[in-house]
């Protein structure tokens, strides 16, 4: 043994080493922080984008119609039982159509316009009214205000989602001259100067494409399309209303970026919608039908109720099957099973099962539950069974981890006072492992709640118009509804889909919240 001189605290080498270590430390922290920052950023972008889209579906536009519930129309002789009335879509729609035609007589001039007018409100939108009247037959023959959702495209237009629109206030119109029926010339000193310069600016940006854009001019309930203009005058084709509305007012001009041929709403429909709005008949209301209606082919009528109930029924079946089986399996494996080759093989396979893609479970469900056992298609029963298989490994693994974390000294203590094996497990081990087991169970259920693929394969993607009441009724589930709505072509489905995603997320957050509460409440230290 040779004497080693003690290393000095401060020399160049020691300081260099310290500096290096500190730098490495700082670097590592930076990596960690940036990883977390990235994850948070991704999460907030995701949530923000979904939330932003969903917000526009949180409200929608309804139109009010003052009508008389004429028995000859809604409850003609021979079709006047409550059941008939509740199904009499044509009758109720006729009330609305005639009201619209009365408000906008110009639509009668050509068939195209008549059809477009009818498209303001979907036929099936009157169903809730029909149901209401059938339940309150004293209303028949009375005057009533029916509020029905505006067609989805016009709803989107009012929300500004159809096209970019340049809106500006024009100068005073001093003279209105009617050149021909529905053709008017509006003049006002420099009234159109601002619009002219807008067009010039746009022309610089997009070239002659600006000529294809519609420029609408409205005052009160009257709207027309500007055909040509200079600084002081414009030739306008009236779409709806009367030309006199323009005199001595400052009308509003709208330049709609998307040409009429490229959008689902015509200038005429926009004009009518603006007129209805001006008359105070359009109101923006909370979109409660999203929670109270079932699926529909029309976005403004569609709701997620059937899917919510379907998801709940499915989860009930899953919980009833997966939680008890999972807990018993894990208790047996962890506490009672002999440690041998067979147990090991079972354990490895349970872990493998947890990694099997969910669609494989769907195939299995389709083959076994539908094919072999002949259970009904599209039923929450089958969905629940398949999802139970899917969550079992998750629950077993989590429960076993919870059981493993119970200190062996507690088992020994129980045995030593003369408790049997069963008593030691059920009196001492399970209560301690309980919160962990339930955490696993709820996380497993949360995973099952978000599963889409296996449910598609057992037919739960079917269009379901009735709220399921039992586990063997046809049903769909929230994630499947999201999937099927997201494949629809119409623009209005986009915010609707986002809204259902938000509903699903609410469910998941609630479940995870329960997990956190359970942990807080029952966490034991020893």
């Amino acid at each position, binding site marked *: 043994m040779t004497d080693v001189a003690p290393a000095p605290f401060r020399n160049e080498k020691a300081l260099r080493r310290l500096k290096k270590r500190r730098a490495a430390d700082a670097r590592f922290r930076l990596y960690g922080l940036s990883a977390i920052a990235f994850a948070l950023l991704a999460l907030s972008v995701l949530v923000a984008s979904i939330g932003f889209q969903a917000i526009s579906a949180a409200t929608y536009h309804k139109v009010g119609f003052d009508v008389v519930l004429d028995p000859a129309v809604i409850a003609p002789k021979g079709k006047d039982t409550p059941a008939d009335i509740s199904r009499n879509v044509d009758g109720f729609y006729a009330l609305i159509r005639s009201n619209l035609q009365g408000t906008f007589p110009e639509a009668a001039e050509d068939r195209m316009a008549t059809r477009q007018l009818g498209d303001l409100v979907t036929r099936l939108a009157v169903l809730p009214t029909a149901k209401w009247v059938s339940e309150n037959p004293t209303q028949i023959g009375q005057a009533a205000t029916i509020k029905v959702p505006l067609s989805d495209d016009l709803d989107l237009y009012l929300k500004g989602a159809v096209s970019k629109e340049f809106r500006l206030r024009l100068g005073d119109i001093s003279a209105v001259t009617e050149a021909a029926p529905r053709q008017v010339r509006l003049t006002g000193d420099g009234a159109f100067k601002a619009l002219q310069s807008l067009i010039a600016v746009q022309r610089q940006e997009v070239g002659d494409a600006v000529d294809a854009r519609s420029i609408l001019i409205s005052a009160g309930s009257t709207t027309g399309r500007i055909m040509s203009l200079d600084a002081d005058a414009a030739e306008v084709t009236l779409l709806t209303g009367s030309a006199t509305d323009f005199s001595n007012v400052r009308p509003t001009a709208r330049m709609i970026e998307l040409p009429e041929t490229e959008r689902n709403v015509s200038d005429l429909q926009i004009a009518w919608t603006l007129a209805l709005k001006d008359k105070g008949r359009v109101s923006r209301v909370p979109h409660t039908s999203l929670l109270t209606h079932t699926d529909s082919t029309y976005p403004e009528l569609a709701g997620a109720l059937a899917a919510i109930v379907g998801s709940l029924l499915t989860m009930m079946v899953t919980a009833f099957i997966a939680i008890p089986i999972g807990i018993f399996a894990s208790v047996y494996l962890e506490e009672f099973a002999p440690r041998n080759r067979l147990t090991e093989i079972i354990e490895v396979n349970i872990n493998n099962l947890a990694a099997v893609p969910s669609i494989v479970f769907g195939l299995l469900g389709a083959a076994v539950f539908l094919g072999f056992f002949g259970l009904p298609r599209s039923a929450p029963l089958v969905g629940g069974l398949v999802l139970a298989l899917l969550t079992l490994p998750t629950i077993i693994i989590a429960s076993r981890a919870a059981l493993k974390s119970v200190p062996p*000294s507690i088992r020994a*203590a129980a045995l*030593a*006072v*003369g*408790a049997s094996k069963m008593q030691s497990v059920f009196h001492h081990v399970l209560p301690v492992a309980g919160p962990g087991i339930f955490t696993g169970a709820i996380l497993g259920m949360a995973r099952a709640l978000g599963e889409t693929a296996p449910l598609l394969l057992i037919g739960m993607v079917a269009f379901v118009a009735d709220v399921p009441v039992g586990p063997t009724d046809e049903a769909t589930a929230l994630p499947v509804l999201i999937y099927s709505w997201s494949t629809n072509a119409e623009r209005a489905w986009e915010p609707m889909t986002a809204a259902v995603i938000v509903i699903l997320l609410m469910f998941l957050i609630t479940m995870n919240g329960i997990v956190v509460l359970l942990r807080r409440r029952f966490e034991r230290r020893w």
Partner: protein
Amino acid sequence: METTMTESRDVSAAGITMDETQGLTFPRIECKNIDVFYGDKQAIFDISLPIPDRSVTALIGPSGCGKSTFLRCLNRMNDTIESCKVTGEIIMDGENINDPDIDPVLLRSRVGMVFQKPNPFPKSIYDNIAYGPRIHGLAASREDLDAIVEKSLRRAGLWDEVKDRLTSPGNSLSGGQQQRLCIARAIAVRPEVILMDEPCSALDPVATARIEELIDELRKRYCIVIVTHSMQQAARVSQRTAFFHLGELVEMGETDQIFTNPRERRTEDYITGRFG
């Protein structure tokens, strides 16, 4: 009893006979030719050991010598270890408790155990004590149970410290109190034998002293077997000592004799600190 013990000085480890032990004191437990195997590995080699009633028997020896394993034979806790196999006879009340048709649950209600680390149940102090009497049906009424809890806590010398907070969790006590709680828990099921596996190794000297006093007190009612690493503790609390080494019983006899005049060289080396 004390007198009988001091009179019979000449008891050898190997040549002990039934008559001599009876002269010593009635052996509560008689172990004959115990072998213990963990899988293929033999941990205990042919140990025969009489354990007298109403006294403290200390098992000493270096780590891994099999003293804890032997202790766990006495209430068949080794049954819970799958690979563990015990052969030989352990006679208690004329029955071989190693017999397959002896119910280990019943055995453990008569042979209590206290562990190295205090391990109260994650329940209230009251429930810790009441659990054993409850599952064995020892209390007919709530009052009975209260009485058992109080008596057990008194015997464990814990009553005065916890009587006002019987509903607070057992884990909220200090380490020494927890260990006395565990002793009270063992007493509550009215055992005849109490096994203690290094009961003071996790405690500070003050708590250790309290436990040792308690053991001395309990000796009047119970047959106590204690495993300890502390030679001083063995000398302080036990009347008889058995020295284990490498799975064999090297020597046993009265504590005084083992510590002052060991017959075996290995014993002497161990107690004088030359190895182990």
